[in-house]
């Protein structure tokens, strides 16, 4: 039965998000017009191959280091029973609240302020560094989520035989392997499709090449074919991940859930807090402090001006991002649930296709498809922005949720079915609450991503409207540094406080339900 729904959902996604891409590609590949062979040769040039290797190298380095840091931080917030764990979580999320570009700029400025040559950061290593900091929070959320949901007695069974450190590496780590792999894959894709940071740091990667084809040569065909190589890379990553995960059971939420598991001693807790604090300082505090100094150096007036510039956009963007996140979570849950424990390669490929596409290409695809008299009502309304969000981030939301669903034993839903619940009832009352924290995580991440989406939105936002990141970037082009920094601060505070609010609500709700009564 669920096959039908899976088909229906896929059909819907294909119609709104995938057809634009297929339409664009079929045109670029000359289907319906004459074939431009010249464009294909772009792929074969030695330079393209070098660029691909370079891109993969940077992507892999970012994926590995961000996932590693995410694991450490995820461990700290989920296994230490911290009193202000929620606050720490939000602080650690801060790098996501800022556009990556701003982060790169802030780090360069930081070196300059210190009187050091920023040339260290204008390098692949610099790009890896900046991107790692930006994407670590995603890994952290995924992993802390997964760590929290391991049945305590599995942990205890190992603790009795080996020191906790070893239990961690031999038992816990393999149990969160799906999360580790997903996080690595996700960050790899995000990193190789990021444009603004490598462009700003003068690092040549595939996205900068694609951008050059678009914006210097107006050579859409080459750009689209080069984008194909990015999608190819992502697909390989996806296949590697799914072939690793198939048929390996990772059910970790026991119905006879254990009670205690590992808790850090007070001494260890202090140590871990110091690690988290140190990381927070280096990764987040430094650039934010710099922004604050720049913004406040001429007094408060620029902050006020920035607020004035952005106040209309904040509300708008907030609304769109909420809708976007809501749809992302709905679609993401739909896909991951209907896929079930099986890997549905076709679905995965569909999602990765729209996710790995460079944002400009996505924008152009949307324009070509929706900008027709028949679909004008979508193209000229904010709906087009929501669709852009859906295309850009559905893969992320789906990954987060699928990860979590794989942890739930089938018998829990079966028990509901024989109790007389319908499929929907079981879904709604058993599965959904059990993945509630992942739904929340997916919503927060989607919301933050939507709040910051620029590349596609700027191609399609209806004339006369505006969005927060677009406004910041369009104003920034020739505004004084202090105003730019002030705008970034305002955006940061806004996204930060909304996210903080979400966490607070969540926390209160969870206190009420006592988190399945875990002590």
């Amino acid at each position, binding site marked *: 039965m669920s096959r039908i729904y899976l088909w229906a959902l896929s059909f819907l996604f294909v119609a709104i998000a995938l057809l634009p891409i297929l339409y664009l590609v079929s045109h670029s590949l000359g289907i319906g017009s004459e074939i431009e062979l010249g464009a294909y040769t772009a792929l074969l040039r030695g330079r393209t191959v070098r660029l691909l290797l370079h891109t993969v190298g940077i992507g892999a380095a970012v994926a590995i280091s961000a996932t590693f840091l995410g694991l450490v931080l995820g461990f700290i917030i989920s296994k230490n029973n911290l009193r202000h764990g929620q606050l720490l979580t939000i602080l650690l999320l801060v790098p996501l609240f800022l556009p990556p570009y701003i982060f790169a700029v802030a780090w360069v400025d930081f070196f300059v302020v210190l009187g050091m040559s920023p040339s260290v950061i204008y390098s692949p290593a610099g790009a890896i560094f900046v991107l790692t900091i930006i994407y670590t929070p995603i890994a952290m959320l995924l992993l802390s989520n997964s760590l929290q949901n391991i049945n305590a007695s599995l942990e205890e069974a190992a603790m009795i035989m080996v020191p906790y450190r070893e239990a961690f590496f031999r038992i816990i780590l393999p149990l969160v392997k799906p999360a580790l792999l997903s996080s690595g894959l996700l960050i790899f894709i995000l990193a190789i499709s990021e444009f603004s940071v490598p462009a700003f740091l003068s690092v040549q990667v595939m996205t900068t090449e694609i951008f050059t084809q678009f914006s210097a040569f107006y050579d859409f065909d080459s750009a689209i074919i080069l984008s194909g190589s990015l999608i190819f890379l992502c697909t390989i990553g996806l296949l590697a991940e799914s072939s690793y995960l198939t048929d390996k059971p990772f059910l970790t939420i026991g119905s006879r859930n254990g009670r205690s598991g590992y808790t850090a001693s007070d001494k260890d807790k202090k140590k871990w807090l110091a690690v988290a604090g140190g990381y927070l300082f280096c990764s987040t505090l430094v650039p934010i402090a710099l922004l604050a100094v720049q913004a406040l150096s001429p007094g408060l007036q620029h902050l006020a001006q920035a607020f004035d510039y952005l106040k209309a956009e904040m509300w708008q963007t907030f609304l769109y991002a909420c809708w976007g996140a809501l749809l992302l979570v709905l679609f993401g849950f739909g896909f991951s649930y209907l896929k079930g424990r099986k890997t549905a390669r076709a679905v995965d490929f569909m999602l990765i296709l729209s996710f790995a596409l460079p944002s400009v290409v996505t924008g152009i695809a949307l324009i070509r498809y929706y900008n027709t008299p028949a679909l004008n009502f979508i193209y000229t309304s904010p709906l087009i922005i929501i669709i852009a969000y859906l295309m850009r981030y559905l893969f992320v939301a789906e990954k987060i949720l699928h990860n979590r669903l794989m942890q739930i034993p089938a018998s829990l839903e079966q028990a509901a079915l024989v109790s007389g*619940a319908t499929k929907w009832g079981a879904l709604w009352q058993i599965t959904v609450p059990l993945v509630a924290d992942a739904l929340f995580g997916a919503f927060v991440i989607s919301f933050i991503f939507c709040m910051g989406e620029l590349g596609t939105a700027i191609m399609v936002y209806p004339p006369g409207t505006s969005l927060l990141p677009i406004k910041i970037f369009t104003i920034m082009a020739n505004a004084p540094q202090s105003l730019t920094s002030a705008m970034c601060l305002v955006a940061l505070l806004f996204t930060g406080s909304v996210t903080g609010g979400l966490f607070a609500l969540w926390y209160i709700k969870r206190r009420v339900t006592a988190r399945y009564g*875990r002590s």
Partner: protein
Amino acid sequence: MAEVELRNVSKSYGKKQVLQDITVEVKKGDLACLLGSSGSGKTTILKLLAGFEAPDSGEISIGGEVVSGNGKVTVAPHKRGIGYIFQDLALWPHMTAFENIAFGLKARKEPDYRIKVQETAEWLGVKDSLDKYPSQLSGGQQQLVAIGRSLVLQPRVLLMDEPLANLDVKLKKVVREKIIELKEALGITIIYVSHDHREAFSLASQLIILNGASVEAIGTPEEIRQSDSAFIKYFIEL
């Protein structure tokens, strides 16, 4: 007519043949005990009856209606009117004991579900634990809640996978008697997996003894006791 019927049912997991051409009939109001060594396919039979798995071949009917056949589940689990006590209990970790027991009643929109849950809990002696989550319950308390969750719905057919494993002998006896009482009162058909053949002999109106992937013998306790199969002789001797 048989209430529950498996006709020539086979089932494999991968290469492993777990059930081979099984034919079993259980009459309405009977209590049939499934006996057999570990891994002989008892749980698998229950899963087939519940409709969580489809048989590779053969047919399954409940109440005269074919519910699985041709390698497919044709009637969904929630439409079969069954209760199931899982070997791993499968209590919902995000619900309190009360909510676990109340779930099916609420799904049926029974207005007086509170009273029924209270009664059932009292009857099973877990009234004090109703506001606890499964992770806060002891093993035995969890088992009682799982039993309560199924019994409160008064299903037509009740599938029980070692429902008393975690209870002490005293409690085992009490609960067992309660189940029989309920069965008599409501005419429920019960398929009961047990490891304790003494229990099985004293409880069942029909015994089904599995050996390897096939049925070794079916019959009343009397008939089985008089069987001259070497396997059964070995199996029921203490």
